[in-house]
Protein backbone atom coordinates (compact mmCIF):
# COMPACT_ATOMS: atom_id res chain seq x y z
CA UNK A 1 0.00 0.00 0.00
CA UNK A 2 1.23 3.49 -0.84
CA UNK A 3 1.58 5.99 2.07
CA UNK A 4 -1.25 8.51 2.34
CA UNK A 5 -2.33 11.50 4.38
CA UNK A 6 -5.59 11.39 6.32
CA UNK A 7 -8.27 13.79 7.46
CA UNK A 8 -11.50 13.02 9.27
CA UNK A 9 -14.12 15.50 8.09
CA UNK A 10 -16.87 16.66 10.43
CA UNK A 11 -18.77 18.74 7.88
CA UNK A 12 -19.48 18.28 4.18
CA UNK A 13 -17.88 21.62 3.22
CA UNK A 14 -14.73 20.53 5.04
CA UNK A 15 -14.73 17.22 3.13
CA UNK A 16 -15.11 18.97 -0.25
CA UNK A 17 -12.33 21.44 0.59
CA UNK A 18 -9.96 18.69 1.74
CA UNK A 19 -10.58 16.75 -1.46
CA UNK A 20 -9.91 19.86 -3.55
CA UNK A 21 -6.71 20.56 -1.63
CA UNK A 22 -5.23 17.11 -2.25
CA UNK A 23 -5.08 16.08 -5.94
CA UNK A 24 -5.91 12.40 -6.34
CA UNK A 25 -7.60 12.19 -2.92
CA UNK A 26 -10.39 9.73 -2.28
CA UNK A 27 -13.28 9.74 0.13
CA UNK A 28 -13.50 6.77 2.49
CA UNK A 29 -16.42 5.68 4.67
CA UNK A 30 -16.79 1.95 5.43
CA UNK A 31 -13.65 1.21 3.44
CA UNK A 32 -14.65 -2.40 2.73
CA UNK A 33 -13.87 -2.07 -0.99
CA UNK A 34 -11.41 0.85 -1.04
CA UNK A 35 -9.04 -0.49 1.65
CA UNK A 36 -8.98 -3.84 -0.14
CA UNK A 37 -8.18 -2.14 -3.48
CA UNK A 38 -5.42 -0.16 -1.75
CA UNK A 39 -3.92 -3.41 -0.44
CA UNK A 40 -4.06 -4.82 -3.97
CA UNK A 41 -2.36 -1.74 -5.39
CA UNK A 42 -5.39 -1.03 -7.61
CA UNK A 43 -6.19 2.18 -5.72
CA UNK A 44 -3.25 4.42 -4.74
CA UNK A 45 -4.73 7.62 -3.27
CA UNK A 46 -2.15 9.99 -1.75
CA UNK A 47 -4.79 11.29 0.65
CA UNK A 48 -7.95 9.91 2.27
CA UNK A 49 -10.81 12.12 3.39
CA UNK A 50 -12.79 10.16 5.98
CA UNK A 51 -16.48 10.99 5.51
CA UNK A 52 -17.88 8.35 7.85
CA UNK A 53 -18.61 10.89 10.62
CA UNK A 54 -20.48 13.35 8.39
CA UNK A 55 -24.07 13.88 9.55
CA UNK A 56 -25.44 11.83 6.63
CA UNK A 57 -26.56 8.73 8.55
CA UNK A 58 -30.33 9.23 8.77
CA UNK A 59 -33.19 7.24 7.25
CA UNK A 60 -36.21 9.54 7.11
CA UNK A 61 -39.65 9.56 5.58
CA UNK A 62 -40.02 12.41 3.09
CA UNK A 63 -43.00 14.79 2.81
CA UNK A 64 -44.33 12.92 -0.24
CA UNK A 65 -44.32 9.57 1.57
CA UNK A 66 -40.99 8.44 0.12
CA UNK A 67 -37.73 7.75 1.91
CA UNK A 68 -34.45 9.65 2.23
CA UNK A 69 -31.45 7.44 2.96
CA UNK A 70 -28.26 9.17 4.07
CA UNK A 71 -25.04 8.27 2.26
CA UNK A 72 -23.32 6.94 5.37
CA UNK A 73 -26.18 4.71 6.59
CA UNK A 74 -24.73 1.25 7.10
CA UNK A 75 -26.07 -1.49 4.84
CA UNK A 76 -27.08 -3.58 7.89
CA UNK A 77 -29.07 -0.72 9.45
CA UNK A 78 -30.84 0.03 6.18
CA UNK A 79 -31.77 -3.63 5.63
CA UNK A 80 -33.29 -3.86 9.13
CA UNK A 81 -35.15 -0.52 8.98
CA UNK A 82 -38.90 -1.14 9.48
CA UNK A 83 -39.95 1.18 6.64
CA UNK A 84 -37.52 -0.47 4.24
CA UNK A 85 -38.63 -3.97 5.22
CA UNK A 86 -42.33 -3.20 4.84
CA UNK A 87 -42.50 -0.70 1.94
CA UNK A 88 -39.35 -1.44 -0.06
CA UNK A 89 -38.99 -5.18 0.46
CA UNK A 90 -36.75 -5.63 -2.60
CA UNK A 91 -34.22 -3.20 -1.10
CA UNK A 92 -34.06 -4.99 2.25
CA UNK A 93 -33.78 -8.38 0.49
CA UNK A 94 -31.06 -7.12 -1.85
CA UNK A 95 -28.99 -5.72 1.01
CA UNK A 96 -29.31 -8.93 3.01
CA UNK A 97 -28.29 -10.98 -0.07
CA UNK A 98 -25.05 -9.00 -0.34
CA UNK A 99 -21.67 -9.71 1.30
CA UNK A 100 -21.49 -10.89 4.93
CA UNK A 101 -22.86 -9.48 8.19
CA UNK A 102 -19.41 -8.07 9.04
CA UNK A 103 -19.16 -6.26 5.71
CA UNK A 104 -22.76 -4.98 5.84
CA UNK A 105 -22.00 -3.52 9.30
CA UNK A 106 -19.23 -1.37 7.79
CA UNK A 107 -20.39 -0.74 4.20
CA UNK A 108 -22.43 2.40 3.52
CA UNK A 109 -25.13 3.41 1.04
CA UNK A 110 -22.82 5.71 -0.91
CA UNK A 111 -19.90 3.29 -0.86
CA UNK A 112 -22.08 0.44 -2.07
CA UNK A 113 -23.03 2.48 -5.15
CA UNK A 114 -19.40 3.43 -5.77
CA UNK A 115 -17.80 0.00 -5.28
CA UNK A 116 -15.67 -1.23 -8.16
CA UNK A 117 -16.11 -4.32 -10.31
CA UNK A 118 -14.77 -7.65 -9.04
CA UNK A 119 -13.53 -8.59 -12.55
CA UNK A 120 -10.35 -10.61 -11.79
CA UNK A 121 -8.28 -8.64 -14.33
CA UNK A 122 -9.27 -5.32 -12.79
CA UNK A 123 -8.13 -6.53 -9.36
CA UNK A 124 -4.77 -7.91 -10.59
CA UNK A 125 -2.20 -5.19 -11.31
CA UNK A 126 0.01 -7.66 -13.21
CA UNK A 127 -2.68 -7.92 -15.93
CA UNK A 128 -3.85 -5.46 -18.58
CA UNK A 129 -7.24 -3.82 -17.91
CA UNK A 130 -8.83 -0.88 -19.68
CA UNK A 131 -10.77 0.07 -16.57
CA UNK A 132 -7.71 0.18 -14.28
CA UNK A 133 -5.12 1.25 -16.87
CA UNK A 134 -6.90 2.77 -19.92
CA UNK A 135 -5.58 1.56 -23.25
CA UNK A 136 -3.89 -1.62 -21.99
CA UNK A 137 -6.60 -3.96 -23.32
CA UNK A 138 -9.23 -6.33 -21.97
CA UNK A 139 -8.01 -9.91 -21.45
CA UNK A 140 -11.39 -10.88 -20.00
CA UNK A 141 -13.05 -10.87 -23.41
CA UNK A 142 -11.05 -14.00 -24.40
CA UNK A 143 -10.06 -15.07 -20.90
CA UNK A 144 -11.91 -15.74 -17.65
CA UNK A 145 -15.33 -14.14 -18.10
CA UNK A 146 -17.89 -16.62 -16.79
CA UNK A 147 -19.10 -14.06 -14.21
CA UNK A 148 -19.01 -11.03 -16.51
CA UNK A 149 -21.43 -9.07 -18.70
CA UNK A 150 -23.96 -10.30 -21.26
CA UNK A 151 -25.65 -6.94 -21.87
CA UNK A 152 -24.33 -3.49 -22.77
CA UNK A 153 -20.63 -4.41 -22.81
CA UNK A 154 -18.08 -2.97 -25.23
CA UNK A 155 -14.92 -4.11 -27.00
CA UNK A 156 -13.03 -2.28 -24.23
CA UNK A 157 -14.71 -3.77 -21.15
CA UNK A 158 -16.99 -6.64 -20.15
CA UNK A 159 -17.03 -5.94 -16.39
CA UNK A 160 -20.19 -6.17 -14.27
CA UNK A 161 -21.25 -3.89 -11.44
CA UNK A 162 -21.25 -6.08 -8.31
CA UNK A 163 -23.89 -4.36 -6.15
CA UNK A 164 -27.13 -6.04 -5.10
CA UNK A 165 -28.48 -2.90 -3.43
CA UNK A 166 -28.18 -0.81 -6.60
CA UNK A 167 -30.30 -3.30 -8.57
CA UNK A 168 -33.18 -2.92 -6.12
CA UNK A 169 -32.74 0.87 -6.14
CA UNK A 170 -32.89 0.83 -9.96
CA UNK A 171 -36.25 -0.96 -9.91
CA UNK A 172 -37.55 1.34 -7.15
CA UNK A 173 -36.86 4.56 -9.13
CA UNK A 174 -34.25 5.89 -6.69
CA UNK A 175 -32.53 9.24 -7.10
CA UNK A 176 -28.91 9.88 -6.07
CA UNK A 177 -28.09 13.23 -4.49
CA UNK A 178 -24.63 14.67 -5.14
CA UNK A 179 -22.85 17.63 -3.60
CA UNK A 180 -19.86 19.36 -5.16
CA UNK A 181 -18.12 22.71 -4.86
CA UNK A 182 -20.50 23.91 -7.61
CA UNK A 183 -23.57 22.91 -5.61
CA UNK A 184 -26.06 20.07 -5.48
CA UNK A 185 -27.52 17.94 -8.25
CA UNK A 186 -29.70 14.86 -8.47
CA UNK A 187 -29.21 11.92 -10.82
CA UNK A 188 -31.68 9.04 -11.34
CA UNK A 189 -30.04 5.83 -10.15
CA UNK A 190 -30.54 4.33 -13.60
CA UNK A 191 -28.29 7.06 -15.02
CA UNK A 192 -25.78 7.06 -12.16
CA UNK A 193 -23.75 4.08 -13.41
CA UNK A 194 -22.47 4.19 -16.99
CA UNK A 195 -22.07 1.57 -19.67
CA UNK A 196 -18.37 1.07 -20.51
CA UNK A 197 -18.23 2.23 -24.14
CA UNK A 198 -14.80 3.63 -24.96
CA UNK A 199 -14.13 4.93 -21.43
CA UNK A 200 -14.59 2.03 -18.98
CA UNK A 201 -12.35 3.82 -16.48
CA UNK A 202 -15.46 5.82 -15.52
CA UNK A 203 -17.91 3.64 -13.57
CA UNK A 204 -20.36 6.44 -12.81
CA UNK A 205 -21.27 10.02 -13.73
CA UNK A 206 -19.87 11.35 -10.44
CA UNK A 207 -17.50 14.27 -11.08
CA UNK A 208 -14.15 14.52 -9.27
CA UNK A 209 -14.69 15.73 -5.71
CA UNK A 210 -18.45 15.25 -5.72
CA UNK A 211 -19.86 13.57 -2.67
CA UNK A 212 -22.88 11.27 -2.62
CA UNK A 213 -25.01 12.72 0.20
CA UNK A 214 -28.23 10.70 -0.01
CA UNK A 215 -30.44 8.37 -1.99
CA UNK A 216 -34.15 9.11 -2.13
CA UNK A 217 -37.00 6.79 -3.00
CA UNK A 218 -40.46 7.85 -4.19
CA UNK A 219 -43.48 6.30 -2.49
CA UNK A 220 -43.61 2.63 -3.57
CA UNK A 221 -45.19 2.44 -7.04
CA UNK A 222 -45.78 -1.31 -7.10
CA UNK A 223 -47.99 -3.13 -4.60
CA UNK A 224 -45.13 -5.51 -3.82
CA UNK A 225 -41.44 -5.75 -4.61
CA UNK A 226 -38.91 -8.54 -4.35
CA UNK A 227 -35.25 -9.34 -5.02
CA UNK A 228 -33.91 -12.72 -6.01
CA UNK A 229 -30.29 -13.68 -6.58
CA UNK A 230 -28.65 -16.70 -8.22
CA UNK A 231 -25.08 -17.41 -7.10
CA UNK A 232 -22.53 -20.21 -6.87
CA UNK A 233 -23.18 -20.84 -3.17
CA UNK A 234 -26.11 -20.18 -0.85
CA UNK A 235 -24.60 -17.18 0.93
CA UNK A 236 -21.77 -14.65 0.75
CA UNK A 237 -21.15 -14.69 -3.01
CA UNK A 238 -21.64 -12.17 -5.80
CA UNK A 239 -24.62 -12.57 -8.11
CA UNK A 240 -24.36 -14.56 -11.30
CA UNK A 241 -27.68 -12.97 -12.12
CA UNK A 242 -30.12 -11.15 -9.86
CA UNK A 243 -33.56 -9.66 -10.38
CA UNK A 244 -35.41 -6.88 -8.60
CA UNK A 245 -39.04 -6.31 -9.46
CA UNK A 246 -42.05 -4.30 -8.34
CA UNK A 247 -45.49 -5.29 -9.59
CA UNK A 248 -49.11 -4.23 -9.25
CA UNK A 249 -51.81 -6.47 -10.71
CA UNK A 250 -55.42 -5.28 -10.95
CA UNK A 251 -58.30 -7.40 -12.27
CA UNK A 252 -55.88 -9.90 -13.72
CA UNK A 253 -53.84 -7.34 -15.66
CA UNK A 254 -50.46 -5.73 -14.99
CA UNK A 255 -51.04 -2.13 -13.93
CA UNK A 256 -47.45 -1.30 -12.90
CA UNK A 257 -44.24 -3.23 -13.47
CA UNK A 258 -40.62 -2.33 -12.81
CA UNK A 259 -37.84 -4.81 -13.47
CA UNK A 260 -34.06 -4.63 -13.11
CA UNK A 261 -31.26 -7.17 -13.54
CA UNK A 262 -27.96 -7.41 -11.67
CA UNK A 263 -24.79 -9.33 -12.54
CA UNK A 264 -25.35 -8.91 -16.27
CA UNK A 265 -23.90 -5.49 -17.13
CA UNK A 266 -21.56 -2.63 -16.23
CA UNK A 267 -24.54 -1.01 -14.49
CA UNK A 268 -27.76 -2.19 -12.84
CA UNK A 269 -29.88 -3.08 -15.89
CA UNK A 270 -33.36 -1.54 -15.84
CA UNK A 271 -35.49 -3.66 -18.20
CA UNK A 272 -37.57 -0.95 -19.90
CA UNK A 273 -38.33 -3.11 -22.96
CA UNK A 274 -39.80 -5.81 -20.72
CA UNK A 275 -41.82 -3.26 -18.76
CA UNK A 276 -43.26 -1.92 -22.01
CA UNK A 277 -44.50 -5.40 -22.93
CA UNK A 278 -45.93 -6.04 -19.44
CA UNK A 279 -48.03 -2.91 -19.11
CA UNK A 280 -51.77 -3.66 -19.39
CA UNK A 281 -51.24 -7.30 -20.38
CA UNK A 282 -52.77 -10.30 -18.57
CA UNK A 283 -50.72 -11.18 -15.49
CA UNK A 284 -49.71 -14.63 -16.68
CA UNK A 285 -46.48 -16.57 -16.91
CA UNK A 286 -46.77 -16.37 -20.70
CA UNK A 287 -46.78 -12.56 -20.55
CA UNK A 288 -43.80 -12.49 -18.18
CA UNK A 289 -41.78 -14.81 -20.41
CA UNK A 290 -42.61 -12.76 -23.51
CA UNK A 291 -41.65 -9.54 -21.73
CA UNK A 292 -38.35 -10.88 -20.43
CA UNK A 293 -37.51 -12.31 -23.86
CA UNK A 294 -38.07 -8.87 -25.37
CA UNK A 295 -35.47 -7.50 -22.97
CA UNK A 296 -32.97 -10.31 -23.36
CA UNK A 297 -33.10 -10.15 -27.16
CA UNK A 298 -30.34 -7.55 -26.74
CA UNK A 299 -28.08 -10.03 -24.89
CA UNK A 300 -24.66 -10.68 -26.45
CA UNK A 301 -23.08 -13.35 -24.28
CA UNK A 302 -19.38 -14.21 -24.29
CA UNK A 303 -17.95 -17.71 -24.83
CA UNK A 304 -18.45 -18.92 -21.24
CA UNK A 305 -21.34 -16.91 -19.84
CA UNK A 306 -24.26 -17.68 -22.20
CA UNK A 307 -25.86 -19.55 -19.27
CA UNK A 308 -26.72 -16.17 -17.76
CA UNK A 309 -29.39 -15.48 -20.38
CA UNK A 310 -31.73 -18.41 -19.56
CA UNK A 311 -30.86 -17.92 -15.88
CA UNK A 312 -32.03 -14.29 -16.06
CA UNK A 313 -35.17 -15.36 -17.90
CA UNK A 314 -36.05 -18.04 -15.35
CA UNK A 315 -35.36 -15.81 -12.35
CA UNK A 316 -37.38 -12.88 -13.69
CA UNK A 317 -40.40 -14.99 -14.65
CA UNK A 318 -40.32 -16.62 -11.23
CA UNK A 319 -40.07 -13.32 -9.33
CA UNK A 320 -42.93 -11.75 -11.33
CA UNK A 321 -45.11 -14.84 -10.89
CA UNK A 322 -44.50 -14.88 -7.13
CA UNK A 323 -45.23 -11.16 -6.84
CA UNK A 324 -48.53 -11.50 -8.72
CA UNK A 325 -49.73 -14.06 -6.18
CA UNK A 326 -48.95 -11.91 -3.12
CA UNK A 327 -52.15 -10.96 -1.31
Amino acid at each position, binding site marked *: MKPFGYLRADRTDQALAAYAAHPGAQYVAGGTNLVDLM*KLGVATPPFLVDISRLPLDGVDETADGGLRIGATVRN*SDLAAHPLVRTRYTALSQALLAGA*SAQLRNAATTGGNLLQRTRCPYFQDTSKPCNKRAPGTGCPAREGVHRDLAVLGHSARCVATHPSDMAVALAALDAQVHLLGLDGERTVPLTEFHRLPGDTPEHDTVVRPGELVTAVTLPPPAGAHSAYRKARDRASYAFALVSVAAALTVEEGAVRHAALAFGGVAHAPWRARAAEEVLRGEPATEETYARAVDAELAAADPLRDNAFKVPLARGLAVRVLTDLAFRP
Partner: protein
Amino acid sequence: MDDAGATSGSRTFREGGTEERHPDPTSFVSLRINGNTHELRLDNRTTLLDTLREHLDLTGAKKGCDHGQCGACTVLVGGRRINSCLVLAVTCDEPVTTIEGLADHDRLHPLQEAFVARDALQCGYCTPGQICSAVAMLDEAAAGHPSHVTPPGRPGAGDPELLTPEEIRERMSGNICRCGAYANIVDAIQEAAR
Protein backbone atom coordinates in the same frame (compact mmCIF):
# COMPACT_ATOMS: atom_id res chain seq x y z
CA MET B 1 -15.41 7.00 24.39
CA ASP B 2 -14.61 10.64 24.76
CA ASP B 3 -10.89 10.05 24.76
CA ALA B 4 -10.93 7.77 21.74
CA GLY B 5 -10.28 9.15 18.32
CA ALA B 6 -7.68 10.22 15.87
CA THR B 7 -6.06 13.45 14.93
CA SER B 8 -3.38 14.08 12.35
CA GLY B 9 -5.43 15.46 9.60
CA SER B 10 -5.34 18.59 11.73
CA ARG B 11 -1.60 18.72 11.11
CA THR B 12 -1.82 18.35 7.37
CA PHE B 13 -4.96 20.31 6.63
CA ARG B 14 -5.66 23.90 7.45
CA GLU B 15 -9.09 25.48 7.49
CA GLY B 16 -9.70 26.96 4.07
CA GLY B 17 -8.03 24.10 2.28
CA THR B 18 -4.41 25.22 2.18
CA GLU B 19 -2.56 22.57 0.26
CA GLU B 20 0.47 20.94 1.80
CA ARG B 21 2.98 19.22 -0.38
CA HIS B 22 3.66 16.31 1.91
CA PRO B 23 0.71 15.31 4.05
CA ASP B 24 1.76 13.48 7.20
CA PRO B 25 1.55 9.73 6.46
CA THR B 26 1.21 8.98 10.19
CA SER B 27 -1.43 9.80 12.77
CA PHE B 28 -1.79 9.91 16.50
CA VAL B 29 -4.41 7.31 17.36
CA SER B 30 -6.16 6.70 20.67
CA LEU B 31 -7.83 3.30 20.79
CA ARG B 32 -10.06 1.91 23.52
CA ILE B 33 -9.58 -1.87 23.47
CA ASN B 34 -11.10 -4.32 25.96
CA GLY B 35 -11.50 -1.45 28.42
CA ASN B 36 -7.93 -0.14 28.11
CA THR B 37 -6.85 3.01 26.29
CA HIS B 38 -3.84 2.77 23.97
CA GLU B 39 -2.20 5.85 22.50
CA LEU B 40 -0.04 5.22 19.48
CA ARG B 41 1.51 6.97 16.52
CA LEU B 42 0.70 4.78 13.55
CA ASP B 43 1.36 4.77 9.84
CA ASN B 44 -2.02 5.62 8.32
CA ARG B 45 -1.82 2.35 6.37
CA THR B 46 -2.02 0.23 9.53
CA THR B 47 -5.18 -1.82 9.77
CA LEU B 48 -6.94 -2.41 13.07
CA LEU B 49 -5.95 -6.09 12.76
CA ASP B 50 -2.23 -5.28 12.39
CA THR B 51 -2.48 -2.76 15.23
CA LEU B 52 -3.90 -5.42 17.53
CA ARG B 53 -1.45 -8.13 16.51
CA GLU B 54 1.78 -6.24 15.79
CA HIS B 55 1.57 -3.26 18.13
CA LEU B 56 -0.51 -4.41 21.11
CA ASP B 57 0.29 -8.14 21.40
CA LEU B 58 -3.39 -9.00 21.06
CA THR B 59 -2.94 -11.97 18.74
CA GLY B 60 -6.37 -13.53 19.30
CA ALA B 61 -7.83 -11.98 16.14
CA LYS B 62 -6.27 -13.93 13.27
CA LYS B 63 -5.07 -12.94 9.82
CA GLY B 64 -6.54 -15.41 7.36
CA CYS B 65 -7.13 -13.85 3.94
CA ASP B 66 -6.47 -10.18 4.86
CA HIS B 67 -9.16 -9.23 2.29
CA GLY B 68 -12.43 -9.46 4.26
CA GLN B 69 -13.35 -12.84 2.85
CA CYS B 70 -12.69 -15.31 5.70
CA GLY B 71 -13.84 -13.63 8.94
CA ALA B 72 -10.87 -14.85 11.05
CA CYS B 73 -10.12 -11.22 12.00
CA THR B 74 -13.65 -10.47 13.25
CA VAL B 75 -13.77 -8.17 16.28
CA LEU B 76 -16.47 -5.95 17.77
CA VAL B 77 -16.26 -2.20 17.16
CA GLY B 78 -18.91 -0.25 19.03
CA GLY B 79 -20.58 -3.61 19.65
CA ARG B 80 -20.82 -4.42 15.92
CA ARG B 81 -18.89 -7.24 14.29
CA ILE B 82 -16.52 -6.11 11.54
CA ASN B 83 -13.54 -7.44 9.60
CA SER B 84 -10.60 -5.77 11.37
CA CYS B 85 -8.37 -6.40 8.32
CA LEU B 86 -10.42 -3.86 6.31
CA VAL B 87 -10.54 -1.14 8.98
CA LEU B 88 -7.76 1.42 9.06
CA ALA B 89 -6.90 2.00 12.72
CA VAL B 90 -6.81 5.76 12.13
CA THR B 91 -10.54 5.67 11.27
CA CYS B 92 -11.49 3.80 14.44
CA ASP B 93 -12.92 5.86 17.33
CA GLU B 94 -15.34 3.45 18.96
CA PRO B 95 -14.48 0.93 21.70
CA VAL B 96 -13.09 -2.35 20.41
CA THR B 97 -13.69 -5.77 21.94
CA THR B 98 -11.51 -8.68 20.88
CA ILE B 99 -11.63 -12.34 21.85
CA GLU B 100 -9.27 -11.48 24.72
CA GLY B 101 -11.92 -9.16 26.16
CA LEU B 102 -14.92 -11.50 26.21
CA ALA B 103 -14.23 -13.52 29.37
CA ASP B 104 -15.05 -12.09 32.80
CA HIS B 105 -11.63 -12.68 34.42
CA ASP B 106 -11.38 -16.50 34.59
CA ARG B 107 -15.04 -17.05 33.71
CA LEU B 108 -15.42 -17.73 30.01
CA HIS B 109 -18.12 -16.01 27.94
CA PRO B 110 -21.13 -18.33 27.43
CA LEU B 111 -20.23 -18.68 23.74
CA GLN B 112 -16.66 -19.66 24.62
CA GLU B 113 -18.12 -22.26 27.05
CA ALA B 114 -20.47 -23.54 24.35
CA PHE B 115 -17.67 -23.85 21.75
CA VAL B 116 -15.65 -25.92 24.22
CA ALA B 117 -18.63 -28.02 25.33
CA ARG B 118 -19.69 -28.75 21.74
CA ASP B 119 -16.15 -29.28 20.38
CA ALA B 120 -16.90 -26.58 17.80
CA LEU B 121 -13.42 -26.44 16.32
CA GLN B 122 -10.60 -28.53 14.99
CA CYS B 123 -7.44 -26.47 14.36
CA GLY B 124 -8.89 -23.40 16.12
CA TYR B 125 -7.54 -20.75 13.76
CA CYS B 126 -10.98 -19.41 12.83
CA THR B 127 -12.38 -19.78 16.37
CA PRO B 128 -11.72 -16.28 17.80
CA GLY B 129 -13.42 -14.79 14.73
CA GLN B 130 -16.28 -17.30 14.92
CA ILE B 131 -16.92 -16.50 18.59
CA CYS B 132 -16.71 -12.71 18.23
CA SER B 133 -19.00 -12.96 15.21
CA ALA B 134 -21.48 -15.15 17.11
CA VAL B 135 -21.56 -12.75 20.09
CA ALA B 136 -22.66 -9.89 17.83
CA MET B 137 -24.91 -12.15 15.78
CA LEU B 138 -26.94 -13.08 18.87
CA ASP B 139 -27.29 -9.38 19.72
CA GLU B 140 -28.47 -8.62 16.16
CA ALA B 141 -31.00 -11.45 16.31
CA ALA B 142 -32.21 -10.32 19.75
CA ALA B 143 -32.72 -6.82 18.31
CA GLY B 144 -34.94 -8.34 15.62
CA HIS B 145 -32.61 -7.81 12.68
CA PRO B 146 -33.63 -9.96 9.72
CA SER B 147 -31.34 -12.14 7.61
CA HIS B 148 -31.46 -13.23 3.97
CA VAL B 149 -33.44 -16.35 5.00
CA THR B 150 -35.92 -14.51 7.25
CA PRO B 151 -39.34 -14.37 5.53
CA PRO B 152 -40.08 -10.71 4.62
CA GLY B 153 -43.18 -10.51 6.81
CA ARG B 154 -41.49 -11.83 9.95
CA PRO B 155 -39.98 -9.48 12.54
CA GLY B 156 -36.39 -10.72 12.57
CA ALA B 157 -35.36 -13.39 15.04
CA GLY B 158 -35.99 -11.77 18.44
CA ASP B 159 -37.29 -15.07 19.79
CA PRO B 160 -34.42 -17.61 20.23
CA GLU B 161 -36.78 -20.28 18.86
CA LEU B 162 -36.68 -18.49 15.51
CA LEU B 163 -32.89 -18.84 15.43
CA THR B 164 -32.98 -22.06 13.44
CA PRO B 165 -29.85 -23.81 12.10
CA GLU B 166 -30.69 -22.28 8.69
CA GLU B 167 -30.76 -18.78 10.25
CA ILE B 168 -27.49 -19.39 12.11
CA ARG B 169 -25.74 -20.67 8.99
CA GLU B 170 -26.84 -17.66 6.95
CA ARG B 171 -25.97 -15.16 9.68
CA MET B 172 -22.53 -16.75 10.20
CA SER B 173 -21.65 -17.05 6.49
CA GLY B 174 -18.93 -14.40 6.86
CA ASN B 175 -16.84 -16.81 8.94
CA ILE B 176 -15.16 -19.59 7.01
CA CYS B 177 -13.93 -22.77 8.78
CA ARG B 178 -11.54 -24.68 6.55
CA CYS B 179 -11.63 -27.69 8.91
CA GLY B 180 -15.37 -27.82 8.31
CA ALA B 181 -16.47 -27.75 11.96
CA TYR B 182 -19.70 -26.04 10.93
CA ALA B 183 -22.09 -28.66 12.34
CA ASN B 184 -20.74 -28.23 15.87
CA ILE B 185 -20.36 -24.45 15.48
CA VAL B 186 -24.09 -24.22 14.70
CA ASP B 187 -24.89 -26.46 17.69
CA ALA B 188 -22.72 -24.37 20.01
CA ILE B 189 -24.34 -21.10 18.92
CA GLN B 190 -27.82 -22.56 19.21
CA GLU B 191 -27.00 -23.79 22.72
CA ALA B 192 -25.67 -20.38 23.76
CA ALA B 193 -28.75 -18.67 22.30
CA ARG B 194 -31.10 -20.55 24.62
